[in-house]
């Protein structure tokens, strides 16, 4: 499969293995198309998870990653795309409807927007909250004190 994808997309795909697990780092520009191919041609019909990680020291600050599973192959693969701060990623809700909440959580926690998502808004934090807590520049004790004071009527949530 990797060889086939490699012949299709060339240097856009970098297949890697760690601890016996396959994953690939791919160009952001391949994103909706490659996921579509994995879903339709390689039978990765179950989108296990969509998440992200923040690397502030890098130029492309965010890793967005999709964990996929194929029932037919009994195989898992991770697809990682590196993006710039402020970049958006095409949504995969049309490929896997289950991506809906997972993408909303990535947006909520990292501020990464998904283009074409039917309902791109926060999911765990309140709608009016400022800041995205899983970014590395968001402190562990940090909070949106304005929100807390207005909505909870207390000085601090700590």
């Amino acid at each position, binding site marked *: 499969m990797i060889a086939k994808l490699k012949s299709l997309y060339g240097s856009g795909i970098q297949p890697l293995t*760690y*601890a016996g*697990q396959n*994953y690939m780092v791919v160009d952001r520009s391949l994103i909706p198309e490659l996921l579509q191919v994995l879903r339709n041609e390689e039978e990765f*019909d*179950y*989108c*296990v*998870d969509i*998440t992200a*990680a*923040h690397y502030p020291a890098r130029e492309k600050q965010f890793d967005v*990653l999709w*964990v996929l599973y194929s*029932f037919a192959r*009994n195989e*898992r693969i*991770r697809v990682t795309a590196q993006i710039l701060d402020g970049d958006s990623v095409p949504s995969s809700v049309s490929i*896997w*409807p*289950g991506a*809906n*909440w*997972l993408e909303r*959580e990535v947006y909520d*926690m990292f501020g990464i927007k998904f283009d074409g998502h*039917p*309902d791109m*808004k*926060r*999911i*765990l*934090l*309140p*709608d*009016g909250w400022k800041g995205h*807590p*899983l970014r590395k520049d*968001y402190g*562990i004790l940090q909070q949106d004190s304005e929100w807390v004071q207005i*909505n909870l009527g207390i000085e601090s949530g700590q």
Partner: protein
Amino acid sequence: MTEPNSTLSHLDLETSEKPFLDANELVINMGPQHPATHGVLRVILRLDGEKVLGLECVIGYLHRGVEKIGEHRTYTMFNPYVDRMDYVAAVSNGLGYCETVEKLLNVEAPPRAQHVRVILTELNRIASHQLWLGTHALDIGAITPLFYTFRDREEILKIYEKYCGARLTTHAFRIGGLQYETYSGFESDVKNFLKFFRPKIDEYEELLTTNRIWVDRTKNVGVISGKDCIALGVTGPVLRASGVKWDLRKAQPYANYKNFDFDIPIGENGDTYDRYLVRMAEMRQSVRIIEQAVAAIPEGPIMAKVPKVIKPAVGEVYHSIEAPKGELGYFIVSDGSTQPYRVRVRPPSFVNLQALDKMCRGQLVADVIAVIGTLDIVLGEVDR
């Protein structure tokens, strides 16, 4: 609070040309403080009389930022936190976390530890299903099963208490093995429990399986097809009740599940009744697994050789286990320091809850309660 209608967008209220208060349509709010939502879950229902036209879940009331906490604790220190996500299946959470870090460290727990892990985890599956059965039946109006299941669950919690001193948030495992050696009499306690518990499952079934009210309230309620389950990422008993024979313990065996003989129970119709049957059958299978495991606990160390300070090499790993609710996954990125760079938890309850809208459309309001119960969500895990 923020504008009350800001979460209603996908229910077409704002774009609809019909007046906001159409005579046939009613928007009502259920929760977050509601006895049948199993925690602080808010559901906004759009109704036509008694019929559900659509609904939206509002979650996050129990958000504690577990993933953020993980980045600020060492690998060992974060271990007890995972117990507090799905607090009725804390042992499963711990197993998933410890195994993931073990994968990062490239160590494997010794056979004795693996065996005890399987016993404790399967006991936990039974306890989780018992709690589900009791509360689910209570929601639908059958009060008796709650007393039966809680009476019997107590016996499992007693074993936990004797093993590690805690009943719910057990922190039973350590990275590389077990927290404690088993106490003397552990094996006979477990064997006695199995003997005690086997007829109890029949007792539960006697109360419900052919009970006409129960069957009427659950048959053809909240139907979801296997295809829809896969598309939505729904796993666990919900997926299996829709006829998909998939269980991570068989598909990608972890711990030492491959050494035990057990079946994967599946359903046909994907309705609430089938999900009930699947979970009942799973309890029986868990008894089978524990029986085999407890009969042959090998001697040996309970801890692998793990350095005192856990510092995995740079790398990232995704590992998942079959928790009582579905696929529980951990994605951990190590930067070579003593603290995880990123911990992501893939919670089964969160993903399964997404199917609520699909399962409730066209049903009655009272069925929403039945469907929330049958999804077996724990809000501590949904919100993390």
